[in-house]
């Protein structure tokens, strides 16, 4: 039965909750409403309809409230009571904060889970962000960076796959400046001495290069002392970096001092450079003036590529137009040159991230693959997404427990916007707090990460105003998004229902479905990451353990100087005298590199001599035996046959295939004017990294001097062997300290980018799984709590503990299974593409998928199982008393 008086009282109380209306205003509105109702009653309307119609005529509540609210503020300003009102609001804010803090403190475990996930995710993201920024800003510190280019070539010799190289011809640089108006200046680099002597003291440098005066025009490497205009103009000048100068001269003034290299060339120190920053692909400790070099005829030829050339284009010049005439230009230098060479400009800023296809790329410090920068970015996004989902999920779940608070707040007059603001504010504050902790965590982890990645990143990068603003903005947005859903759910609560039922918000079906969806999303990402890690590890192990066709274990590589080359035989004799050393040999270049290509002429099946430029490895005569390289035809080199040194050739199967030879042994090869027979065919072995297929290769015994000696040592006796090697070294070589590298280390370094990538993905996969499990843990515990009574009843009716565990676990297992179904094809597609980069790759099998799925399931069950077991073991009587 409708009670008009009661309805009016309720209406009045409702209006009274607004802050703008005083009791006179209420009286006035009530009088109006009553007048209206009386009029309608007189027209014969029943009381309830009269009440509703009159209420509708008043206009909607929000408009009235807003109008009065505005007036209220005007009045306050008028009466100078604004400060009172503000202090009132501050008190309310304080109440919000106190309540929020109590909530967090009361549910320590959940708060920890919730914030922990967010902090871990954020810290990981910050570190990845730093790395990405570091890579993107590589080489950016040069003023002319946007006008700088590296002169690259595509070499297409017969007998080889066309290859991009970072090498150019010696005369190209000056000719470019002369012949092309768009080219303002060029600077060339060539390898220089890595050992300098001041008097009797020797100093080993990491890198020394020859270059020319234009270096200072092109680049911003700053001279601390000396004049950039003259420092490199005279022959026999050297510019040292500050730290090497400090090492050589201490506090003394190095300028004008004389240093010598191992070939007894002398240099005057003409300048001191600031140390080269770590984010430069050009690295050096000493710059020698290019004019110091004694150039031999072959070095000046228009088909010897051995320098790295950089070009500075004029302002406004475009790369495409500048490079337009290169083909004709090459032919003008030497007839038919463009048949074998294609010269192009590579933007300087692309050198670091965009040179994976470029070989003979020896001056590209920390070369990285842009693709992996993108992958890292995507990973960062996903990890943040997982952490964010977690935060939303647990916050929503927890909010159910706060329904009563919301009910009370509403009953005493809180408006929906206020409640939404309160909850969103809480989550924003939490995420800001998480950001602060994450920054601290990132600061602590930066050292190890720098070591892992081989970079020198600093956290200060993050405090650039624009970046900081973006970080804070992103965090606010995250807090907002994470808090908005629970806030809207909560503020829509019907206070009467909550207070009457005395209980928690019964989670609606739709609500729990959303939460399940979030868990599935998290596990999808986590499973995909785990599969990715497993496959990456599998592929890397495959690369490192694959039989490359030669023996590479227990081999120590020692660089040879000219002096060492001169006394090579005696050195080898001393080395092999050690009981721990098995054998020694030498070659021009070490395994694991793209061997230099050299031009030669080979006899075709028709008996003609055909020009081609295969990779060519000059060796000591025992090299093939030393490396245990298998021959499929003919024989290896022999000391007994005099012509084997310098004339005979062993070629690989790829060479034979390229020439189309039916019978390889006996074919003639002419190399640098000397002609000899092919005496054997080596089974293809992977002298280059496994990114590449085996290229045609010619092997000959030459007496040119060698870069390195390879020493095979007795397994398990590395320490003793190295001591003996060093002793032998000291006996013959005085001008250079002993240094060495194990060949397997060198091979591991070939896959450093992939190795780093797989470590990062692995780490992130772990994190993703961890955070996803935190979320699951939280949800499972809530599910168990909300089903306490159900479980109690089931047990009271005779359900066994195991059936309870089963009941609780299977629901969550289903989430993981759905996630697996979503993740598997996704991971499959991405990984197929990644594997396609390798010439030698594993086939994607079922194993990593099954393993990842089982792992995720086990981890999930272990997480849920804890709660399920506890619930199953609980006393049903307690459970029935619950609530």
């Amino acid at each position, binding site marked *: 039965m409708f009670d008009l008086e009661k309805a009016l009282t309720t209406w009045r109380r409702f209006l009274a909750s607004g802050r703008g209306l005083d009791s006179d205003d209420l009286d*006035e509105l009530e009088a109006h409403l009553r007048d209206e109702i009386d009029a309608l009653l007189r027209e014969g309307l029943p009381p309830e309809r009269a009440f509703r119609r009159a209420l509708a*005529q*008043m206009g909607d509540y929000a408009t*009235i409230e807003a109008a009065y609210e505005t*007036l209220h503020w*005007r009045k306050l300003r008028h009466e100078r009571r604004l400060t009172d009102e503000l202090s009132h609001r501050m008190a309310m804010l304080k109440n919000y904060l106190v309540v929020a803090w109590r909530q967090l403190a009361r549910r320590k475990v959940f708060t920890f889970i919730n914030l922990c996930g967010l902090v871990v995710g954020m810290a990981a993201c910050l570190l990845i962000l730093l790395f990405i920024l570091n890579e993107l800003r590589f080489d950016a510190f040069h003023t002319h960076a946007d006008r700088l280019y590296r002169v690259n070539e595509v070499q297409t010799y017969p007998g080889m796959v066309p290859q991009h190289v970072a090498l150019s011809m010696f005369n190209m640089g000056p000719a470019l400046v002369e012949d092309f108006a768009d080219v303002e200046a060029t600077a060339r680099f060539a390898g220089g001495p890595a050992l300098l002597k001041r008097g009797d003291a020797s100093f080993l440098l990491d890198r020394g290069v020859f270059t020319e005066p234009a270096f200072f025009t092109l680049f911003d490497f700053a001279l601390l002392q000396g004049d950039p205009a003259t420092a490199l103009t005279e022959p026999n000048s050297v510019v040292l970096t500050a730290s090497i100068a400090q090492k050589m001269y201490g506090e003394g003034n190095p300028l004008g001092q004389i240093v010598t290299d191992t070939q007894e060339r002398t240099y005057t120190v003409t300048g001191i450079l600031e140390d080269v920053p770590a984010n430069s692909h050009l690295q050096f400790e000493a710059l020698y003036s290019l004019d110091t070099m004694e150039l031999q005829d072959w070095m000046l030829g228009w088909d010897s590529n051995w320098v790295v050339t950089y070009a500075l284009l004029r302002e406004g010049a475009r790369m495409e137009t500048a490079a337009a005439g290169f083909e004709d230009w090459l032919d003008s230098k030497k007839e038919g040159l463009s048949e074998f060479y294609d010269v192009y400009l590579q933007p300087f800023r692309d050198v670091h991230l965009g040179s994976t296809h470029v070989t003979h790329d020896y001056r590209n410090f920390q070369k990285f693959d842009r693709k992996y920068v993108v992958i890292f970015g995507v990973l960062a996004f996903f990890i943040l997404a997982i952490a964010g989902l977690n935060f939303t999920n647990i916050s929503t779940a927890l909010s159910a427990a706060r329904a009563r608070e919301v009910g009370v707040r509403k009953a005493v007059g809180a408006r929906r916007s206020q409640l939404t603001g309160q909850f969103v504010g809480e989550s924003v504050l939490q995420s800001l707090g998480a950001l602060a902790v994450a920054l601290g965590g990132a600061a602590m982890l930066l050292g190890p990460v720098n070591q892992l990645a081989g970079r020198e990143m600093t956290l200060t990068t993050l405090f650039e105003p624009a970046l900081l603003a973006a970080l804070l903005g992103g965090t606010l947005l995250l807090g907002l998004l994470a808090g908005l859903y629970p806030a809207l759910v909560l503020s829509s609560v019907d206070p009467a229902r909550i207070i009457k039922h005395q209980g928690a918000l019964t989670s609606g079906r739709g609500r729990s479905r959303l939460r399940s969806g979030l868990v599935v999303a998290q596990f999808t990402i986590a499973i995909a990451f785990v599969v990715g890690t497993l496959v990456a590890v599998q592929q890397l192990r495959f690369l490192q353990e694959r039989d490359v066709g030669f023996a590479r274990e227990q081999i120590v590589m020692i660089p040879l100087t000219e002096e060492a080359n001169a006394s090579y035989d005696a050195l080898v004799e001393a080395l092999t005298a050690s009981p721990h050393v098995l054998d020694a040999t030498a070659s021009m270049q070490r395994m694991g590199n793209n061997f230099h290509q050299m031009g030669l002429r080979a006899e075709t099946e028709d008996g003609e001599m055909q020009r081609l430029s295969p990779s060519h490895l000059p060796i000591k005569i025992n090299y093939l035996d030393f490396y245990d390289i298998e021959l499929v035809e003919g024989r290896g080199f022999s000391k007994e046959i005099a012509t084997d040194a310098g004339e005979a050739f062993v070629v690989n199967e790829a060479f034979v295939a390229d020439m189309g030879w039916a019978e390889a042994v006996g074919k003639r090869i002419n190399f640098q004017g000397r002609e000899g027979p092919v005496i054997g065919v080596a089974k293809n072995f992977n002298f280059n990294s496994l990114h590449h297929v085996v290229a045609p290769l010619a092997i000959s015994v030459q007496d040119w001097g060698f870069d390195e000696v390879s020493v095979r040592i007795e397994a398990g006796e590395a320490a003793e062997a190295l001591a003996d090697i060093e002793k032998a070294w000291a006996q013959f070589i005085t001008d250079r300290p002993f240094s060495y590298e194990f060949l397997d280390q060198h091979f591991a370094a070939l896959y450093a980018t992939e190795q780093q990538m797989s470590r990062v993905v692995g780490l992130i996969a772990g994190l993703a799984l961890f955070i996803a499990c935190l979320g699951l843990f939280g949800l499972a515990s809530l599910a168990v709590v909300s089903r306490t009574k159900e479980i109690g009843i089931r047990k009271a009716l005779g359900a066994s503990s195991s059936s309870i565990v089963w009941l609780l676990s299977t629901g969550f297992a289903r989430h993981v299974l759905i996630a697996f179904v979503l993740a598997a094809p996704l991971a499959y597609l991405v990984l197929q593409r990644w594997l396609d980069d390798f010439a030698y790759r594993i086939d994607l099998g079922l194993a990593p998928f099954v393993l990842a799925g089982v792992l995720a399931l086990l981890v999930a069950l272990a997480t849920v199982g804890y709660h399920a077991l506890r619930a199953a073991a609980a006393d049903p009587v307690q459970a029935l008393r619950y609530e």
Partner: protein
Amino acid sequence: MNLSKPMTAASINAVILALLDRGDSYGYEIIKNVRALSGGAIDWPAGSLYPVLHRMRTDGLVESYWQQPEGERRRRYYSITAKGRKALGEEKAQWMTVHNLLMQLWGPDPAFGL
């Protein structure tokens, strides 16, 4: 026809002041009178009238007092102040200016040739 929101907002002050100039009144009666005088065309929701009255009171254009006539309920009456009369005069002048202009433009016999 219903008056548009801006039109209501522009005219509400003038109408209230004009009505109160003829005698004190209260909210419900003001709405009733406006409805009757406009032949039902102008029907303000109470929600928009009371805040306006409230503001006019703060601005000193009207005064209010409580009164309970014999046999009726207690109501808040409004009366126009001297300042309100001045404001009404100003309103009247402005409205007449607009009115005259429109009448000329829309009149059957324009005062000036077009």
